[in-house]
């Protein structure tokens, strides 16, 4: 079986498996990629995908949003240098399922959550659509950046096919067969010992998800407090205006303070919006990401369990025969491939995570700095107004 490719026996509409790219996930190439990440993107990348221009479609049966996906590539797998297609959420969902089936040993990035309770969020509101667009864009970019997933032929079809539905139907027939080889080994087997490093990854993920969950709650709580603070500020400022109407000499200073509080309120609202639209979704993506990671880890454990069970069975039957049957060997092979893929993906994930969080948290700090700077400017601007009056008197 080709290294890390569970899709060997698929009929590829575009023709050909991406041979020669089977091990770009090795640690050395990963290192290269990382260094290059800091470079200007254009230099080394040969595949660019963006999601933009959401459009609402109203049909008799349903209403939905499609997003434009623009692909630019110099890769040979692409016939044209540029593609532009429209896809809806369920197409993304289909892609993700396909990737999970065809690349079971790899970590598939998460999609934004399918749906929230109806009525709670307006599915067609500008903010919601924009947040989702960003998340879908991130999803495709993560696949694009992946040395293996980006060559997946379903991905290729997703990016290029004029009529994705036709392809979907065609794929249905194959699905079951492909599924067989990667079907989770359900139940029965019990893992003897999970290798330390995977056990550690598992523990890490549990803890990581837990902490992110806490951060998510804290962030939501902060936003809630900020919104309530905003409500009070909105009442607080005008009181100074009311007061100023009573006064002569004090009217201007009081009006100044009122305006100042107004400016601070606006700055606070921007901060809250930024946190809601930029901070929370990234956090959520990583929570989902760690779930994907956990499910891959589980699959790995199952493969190992399968191997161990087979080995045991062999040992019981033929104690004296040194030769291990082919299917056991194949199974061992599969486990080792899995381990290698998983390790590489985990490493890549760790690096992405580090960069993403650095960016996310620095962004949070930046937004707060900007907020305080706006307030500072507002308050500083009224000081001379107050003092001048004082001296003039």
């Amino acid at each position, binding site marked *: 079986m080709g290294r890390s490719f569970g899709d060997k026996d698929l009929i590829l509409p575009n023709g050909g498996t991406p041979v020669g790219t089977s091990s770009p996930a090795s640690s050395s190439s990963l290192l290269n990629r990382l260094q290059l990440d800091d470079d200007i993107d254009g230099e080394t990348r040969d595949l660019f995908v963006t999601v933009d221009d959401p459009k609402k479609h109203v049909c008799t049966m349903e209403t939905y949003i499609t997003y434009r996906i623009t692909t630019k590539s110099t890769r040979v797998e692409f016939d044209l240098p540029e593609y532009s297609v429209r896809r809806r959420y369920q197409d993304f969902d289909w892609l993700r399922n396909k990737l999970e089936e065809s690349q079971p040993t790899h970590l598939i990035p998460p999609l934004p959550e399918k749906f929230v309770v109806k009525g709670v969020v307006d599915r067609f509101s500008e903010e919601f659509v924009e947040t989702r667009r960003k998340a879908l864009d991130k999803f495709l970019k993560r696949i694009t950046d992946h040395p293996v997933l980006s060559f997946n032929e379903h991905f290729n079809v997703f990016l290029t096919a004029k009529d994705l539905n036709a392809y979907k139907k065609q794929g249905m027939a194959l699905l079951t067969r492909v599924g067989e080889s990667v079907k989770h080994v359900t139940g029965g087997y019990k893992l003897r010992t999970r290798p330390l490093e995977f056990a550690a990854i598992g523990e890490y993920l549990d803890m990581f998800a837990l902490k992110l969950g806490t*951060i998510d709650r804290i962030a939501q709580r902060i936003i809630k407090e900020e919104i309530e603070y905003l409500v009070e500020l909105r009442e607080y400022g005008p009181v100074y205006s009311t007061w100023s109407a009573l006064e002569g000499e004090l009217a201007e200073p009081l009006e100044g303070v009122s305006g*100042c509080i107004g400016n601070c309120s606006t700055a606070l609202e921007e901060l809250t919006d930024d946190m809601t639209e930029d901070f929370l979704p990234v956090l959520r993506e990583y929570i989902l990401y760690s779930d994907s990671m956990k499910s891959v880890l589980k699959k790995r454990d199952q493969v190992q369990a399968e191997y161990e069970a087979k080995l045991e069975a062999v040992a019981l039957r033929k104690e004296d025969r040194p030769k291990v049957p082919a299917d056991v060997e194949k199974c061992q092979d599969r486990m080792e491939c899995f381990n290698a893929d998983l390790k590489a993906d985990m490493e890549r994930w760790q690096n992405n995570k580090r960069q993403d969080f650095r960016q996310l948290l620095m962004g949070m700090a930046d937004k707060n700095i900007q907020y305080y700077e706006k307030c500072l400017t507002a308050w500083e601007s009224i000081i001379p107004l107050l003092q001048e009056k*004082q001296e003039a008197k």
Partner: protein
Amino acid sequence: MEQAPLDPERQLPPAPLEPLGRSDAGLEATGGEEAEGSRDAGSGVDTMTENNFWLKKIEISVSEAEKRTGRNAMNMQETYTAYLVETRSVEHADGQSVLTDSLWRRYSEFELLRNYLLVYYPHIVVPPLPEKRAEFVWHKLSADNMDPDFVERRRIGLENFLLRIASHPILCRDKIFYLFLTQAILTEILWSSQIGPTEFYYSADSRLKALNATFRVKNPDKRFTELKHYSDELQSVISHLLRVRARVADRLYGVYKVHGNYGRVFSEWSAIEKEMGDGLQSAGHHMDVYASSIDDILEDEEHYADQLKEYLFYAEALRAVCRKHELMQYDLEMAAQDLASKKQQCEELATGTVRTFSLKGMTTKLFGQEAPEQREARIKVLEEQINEGEQQLKSKNLEGREFVKNAWADIERFKEQKNRDLKEALISYAVMQISMCKKGIQVWTNAKECFSKM
């Protein structure tokens, strides 16, 4: 012992021999000197140069507060706070001050002093006392009367009260005020012999009248009506402001404190990370710093609230002056009415005509005319009363004019003081906000630095 033997030399404080440069200029100077940062330091600069004999000679401070337990009039055990009132005289040459008097007073004694001032100076906007119980506080502050923070703020408030009186051009010369500062032992006698009865009179009679007078005054002075309206509005706007500000403080407190949770979770998270660990850990530390910085910020803001509160209570003092004016106007109108009716009676008797239907007219018709002597005698009595009434009306008129003149002068003084004080309060509030923003920028810049190392 009706009157305590007072040293005549000391009956009056070294009152200003010349008129003060600006009526209330001294307060800012003393405020800057003594309340140590409780007022904006910049405020004293221009006022320091003003001529102010009284304040150059004497410094007043409420320097300490102490919890005490004693027995009240009902012989019940009670706990109260006593405040140390210190008076120092300042030598002209070197500016050194010598402690001249130092005595303990409790809040109720301050109240007595103020009530006395209210009665004796009806035309003056008497400085208010700090609140008896904490009001408009945000939930983190205790509303307990014995709470150290509250006691401390009240100490500052009481000191401010004394300084306000000391810097008032008229009140500062008051004898009782001087005794309040200097004669611990005399107080009981003074309270009972002088303030006691007046206070009784004041509360039982005048107040009641004052309240009802509102509905009866026929020709209210437009200026006072407007002023009364203003003080009502001022009171309502400031109390609204204070209420909302307390809520704003509550919310702000929440926003900061919730950030403190990042401190904990970053620290826990850092334990499972390799490269990111250090950055997270130290960023968490900055989040802790951020969360705890709000305590000082809001404590400073409380001072601003206290400044506003003083003016909330000043609004009441302003209204008291208006009410007294109203009462005076009412008395005047009553006297005028009385005089008019007597004049009419007199005229009726003299001419024998009855213009309006009255009981007297009826009796006359029923029982015939009285004897001419009787009538003469009655006319004479009435004429005397009319004379007296005219005199009274004249003096009341004069008194009223005097009151209006004095009251208006003090109101003008008060307005100036208010504008200056509040402007200063607004500046210091803006300065506080600026410092909060700077702190915020600092903390987040530090945190960003940590994040960037992840």
